[in-house]
């Protein structure tokens, strides 16, 4: 440092050699060693050592459990979320054709349908394999334009009736053929099959007994598999059984778009 005379600096360094007593050195170094040893003891604590891995494993297990639970409760919904892109892949002309072929709301809302607007939410997926083909679109129209993920129950019935005229017709026929009160049973059955809010309501014990197999079928078979079985029955000429199965299918999956060839 230029402010200090270098001669003074040299003389000072030569003359200045005092050092602290050895006892002070020992006391300070001992304190320093103790200070270092403290964190080590904490680090060796088994709880602290295993806390991070245990937390990670617990988080992982919890996450997987929740994912499995969700998958098990809504298998069809999660699976058919992949259907959405199909709609976007359609050419604009196809989409226009599909929309133009949709019946107007006034046409599709038959009196029978409007009489029971409380049809439960269709948690079952909407699937229309023919919708991607423009040639078949008029027949199978509904699925691509319809909402797939569970909408609110109040909104579902009219929307489903608009989007699925074939289904509406089938319901109309079904309700005409059924005895009085059958519509209510149908609704209850649908609720039961879908695990909807009305499932727990003890509306009709007899109907519950009758619909138990339906519930079982709905949980055991996917809608696609069920429709495939119905189609097979049709091919084998067992039309009566096929019609019964289709009626049951309708009850279990009221909002599902049934291929046109099965409705004939």
């Amino acid at each position: 440092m230029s402010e200090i005379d270098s001669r003074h600096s040299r003389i000072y360094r030569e003359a200045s050699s005092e050092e602290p007593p050895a006892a002070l050195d020992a006391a300070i170094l001992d304190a320093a060693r103790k200070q270092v040893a403290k964190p080590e003891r904490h680090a060796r604590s088994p709880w602290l050592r295993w806390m991070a891995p245990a937390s990670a494993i617990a988080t992982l297990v919890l996450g997987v459990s929740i994912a499995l639970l969700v998958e098990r409760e809504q298998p069809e919904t999660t699976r058919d979320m992949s259907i959405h892109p199909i709609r976007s892949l359609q050419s604009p002309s196809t989409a226009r054709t599909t929309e133009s072929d949709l019946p107007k709301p006034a046409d599709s809302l038959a009196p029978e349908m409007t009489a029971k607007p409380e049809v439960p939410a269709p948690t079952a997926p909407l699937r229309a394999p023919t919708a991607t083909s423009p040639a078949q679109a008029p027949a199978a129209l509904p699925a691509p334009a319809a909402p797939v993920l569970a909408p609110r129950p109040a909104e579902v019935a009219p929307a489903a009736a608009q989007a699925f005229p074939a289904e509406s017709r089938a319901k109309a026929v079904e309700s005409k053929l059924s005895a009085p009160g059958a519509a209510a049973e149908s609704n209850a059955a649908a609720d039961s099959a879908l695990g909807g809010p009305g499932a727990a309501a003890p509306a009709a014990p007899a109907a519950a007994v009758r619909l138990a197999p339906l519930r079982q079928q709905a949980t055991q078979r996917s809608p696609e598999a069920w429709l495939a079985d119905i189609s097979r029955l049709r091919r084998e000429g067992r039309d009566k059984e096929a019609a019964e199965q289709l009626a049951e299918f309708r009850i279990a999956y009221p909002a599902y778009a049934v291929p046109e060839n099965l409705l004939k």
Partner: protein
Amino acid sequence: MLAYRGGDGAAFEALYARWRGPLYRYFLRQCGHAGQADELYQDVFMRVIHAAAGYEPTAKFATWLFRIAHNRLVDHWRKAGRDPVDPPPSGEDGDDCEFDPPAPEGGAPDREAERKQLGAALLAALNSLPELQREAFLLAEEGGLTLEEVASVCGVGRETIKSRLRYATEKLRHKLESWR
């Protein structure tokens, strides 16, 4: 210090070996009493040890160490009822010290003895400096700090430290004039 913070005890020993002498002499020169110097010295190193966990290298270790030492010394002075202030600028002769270092003995026997006497004279002259000027000198010499670092330790401006050092040097030069 970072290594010590990370649990390396040997790192502190190396650090201590490097700074034990300078820090001790800083207190010894400022207090003039070995007992007080011991107490302050130990207290500062204890603070260093306890502050190691939160140590962040925002400055040179020496700057950090001597800032702790400076603060401890100021506390000590306040407790003792002393409040060191910068003395007014001295006269042209710079002779505002009450203490006069010993003059060289006539016909010194040999060079070694002369150097020892010169060293003692310098320490005596240093001891006669005002505390703040002495502190600036000690921080520069013992701590190896720059002007800016000394200013940072003392909490004053660079020019203030420069002025203190210039006065200190002039006084030392005046006291040791007879040794030329």
